[in-house]
């Protein structure tokens, strides 16, 4: 409670300038915003009291009064993790009554350090579902900035919290939401020479963790399908590296191609209709695509080098991939049916594991020049920026809004791994909590 910051003075003119520039005659009004690219640590202070309930009701996930507190905790955790806000949770601010939710006590909040206030409620409906209300207020202006309501099963209460945090984040930053999303990754245990690697999934904040495979066969490089119904990944199930599609609902899986050749590096097309992968024939690896429903694969590259790690552009028209045809791993872009191949990486060193941003504007990659570092460049190859610097950071994956990049970090010597993430600005680098070591993260899209 020692840090008392007001939002910077710029807030008093932002909307006014926008309105004037646009020639609008709306009242010139101050408004809360945060800039995701700004330097410094002027995090916006947001009060997030526990969400009250009109009447405490038991649900399969606990009482609604208890859930109101927990939802506040998740909103606080999400907003803090973004690095843009300094949320103050229920143990730092006073509680509110149900009647206050839509009638905030601005005279009180104005006397605190909070520039913004999130209030909400939790209520059970006759059908047993929860309604979670979520309101954002500008404390200085004493106005409501946004309100949203979510109806969820009690066991999905965390999703309501993520959706509320997403609404706040979007309203204040102008960026697309990303908290209500999931991650597939490889959970690692055991010593370096006998590492057990299991497919696992979790929410974007590490909650609702679940192991999918038992670890008897090494699992690698998972990717959630865009509809979250299945996961494509590599397994040594039959002794050889092969790509399988695992159906989360049924627990069944199948090979993506019946070929006896090893297959690697699976990726979905953004519409979920295609799976891009690499296959080695007599030691030569090229990129193929196959319908996610099965069928005849289509070969896309024909070089004698290793062509691997393709990733579709968000509109599905192009593919970025890595190839060592020049003598070392470099990045190339081609059309989604193959052809028109063009090298885009020329910065010295090796470039690997390209991933096209869901916004389309950037490609993330692993740069190998001494250390393994995560970086971004434009699809044309310009504007290269490195975001991390550790001994071995590898395999970037994008948050659904294209503002945060996740990757995994390996510790020199003992080989321990962890999942990390960093903002596109290179700031706010932090490790995601996982129950055991983690690698090969794959961030899915925003949940529907």
């Amino acid at each position, binding site marked *: 409670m020692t840090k008392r910051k007001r939002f910077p003075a710029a807030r008093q003119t932002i909307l006014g300038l926008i309105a004037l520039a646009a020639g609008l005659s709306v009242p010139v009004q101050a408004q809360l915003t945060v800039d995701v690219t700004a330097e410094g640590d002027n995090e916006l202070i947001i009060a997030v009291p526990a969400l009250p309930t009109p009447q405490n009701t038991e649900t399969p996930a606990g009482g609604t009064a208890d859930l109101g507190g927990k939802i506040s905790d998740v909103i606080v955790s999400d907003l803090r993790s973004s690095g843009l806000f300094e949320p103050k949770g229920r143990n730092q601010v006073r509680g509110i009554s149900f009647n206050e939710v839509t009638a905030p006590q601005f005279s009180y909040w104005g006397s605190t350090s909070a520039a913004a206030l999130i209030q909400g409620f939790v209520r059970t409906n006759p059908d047993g579902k929860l309604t979670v209300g979520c309101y954002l207020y500008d404390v200085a202006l004493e106005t409501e900035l946004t309100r949203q309501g979510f109806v969820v099963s009690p066991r999905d209460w965390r999703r309501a919290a993520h959706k509320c945090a997403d609404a706040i984040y979007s309203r204040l930053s102008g960026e697309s939401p990303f908290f209500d999303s999931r991650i597939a990754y490889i959970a690692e245990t055991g010593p370096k020479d006998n590492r057990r690697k299991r497919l696992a999934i979790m929410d974007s904040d590490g909650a609702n963790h679940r192991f999918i495979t038992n670890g008897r066969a090494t699992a690698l490089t998972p990717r959630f399908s865009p509809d979250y119904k299945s996961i494509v990944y590599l397994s040594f199930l039959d002794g050889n590296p092969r790509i399988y599609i695992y159906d989360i609902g049924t627990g069944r899986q199948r090979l993506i191609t019946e070929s006896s050749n090893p297959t690697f*590096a699976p990726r979905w097309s953004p519409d979920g209709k295609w799976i891009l992968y690499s296959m080695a024939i007599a030691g030569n690896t090229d990129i193929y695509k196959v319908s996610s429903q099965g069928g005849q694969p289509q070969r896309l590259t024909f070089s004698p080098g290793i062509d691997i790690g393709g990733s579709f552009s968000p509109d599905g028209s192009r593919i970025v991939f890595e190839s060592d045809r020049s003598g070392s791993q470099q990045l190339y872009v081609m059309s989604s049916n193959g052809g028109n191949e063009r090298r885009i990486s020329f910065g010295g060193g090796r470039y690997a*594991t390209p991933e096209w941003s869901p916004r389309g504007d950037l490609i993330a990659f692993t740069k190998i020049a001494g250390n*393994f570092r995560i970086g971004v460049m434009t699809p044309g190859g310009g504007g290269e920026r490195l975001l991390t610097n550790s001994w071995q950071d590898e395999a970037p994956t994008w948050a659904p809004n294209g503002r945060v990049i996740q990757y995994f970090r390996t510790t020199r010597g003992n080989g321990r791994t962890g999942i990390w993430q960093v903002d596109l600005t290179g700031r706010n680098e932090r490790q995601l909590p996982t129950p055991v070591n983690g690698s090969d993260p794959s961030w899915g899209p925003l949940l529907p």
Partner: protein
Amino acid sequence: MWKYATPLVITSSLVLAGCGQKPPEELPPAPVGTAPEAPPPAPAGPGYAPGSQGDFLANTMSDRILFDTDRFNVDSQDQVILQSQAQWLAQHPNARITIEGHADERGTRDYNLALGERRANAAKNYLASLGVSPSRMTTVSYGKERPEALGSNEAAWAQNRRAVSVVVR
């Protein structure tokens, strides 16, 4: 890379397993079935059955060849080792092998799987050129997933960039 003290002439009974290797800076754990000292010549002595991996290890120069960073070419030292493997396979016409390709940890996961496949195939192709039927050889890549030397240094990485022939019973 391993160094050999003397020029080698391969004969069918030559036993050189483990001889003249430069000791690694960090000793990997003993691979299962590896003979640390030169065992008695073939045919089978105590400890292994004819046509087994033990027989193979005892009666070839090595079960593996090593590669430079990012490379998959079979150099002259590798050729000598693979020649000894080809001769053993000629003496055991019913034996089949799987060649395991590996990479060191200083590469990205996908690429290393492809690189291991390349290395295993390089060994397979050379053995085939010596007359070993391709139908007796399969390949599998483990990429960087199964390191044998556990350090994070050049010596360990050199040990891990390997193609290992394993007799399949």
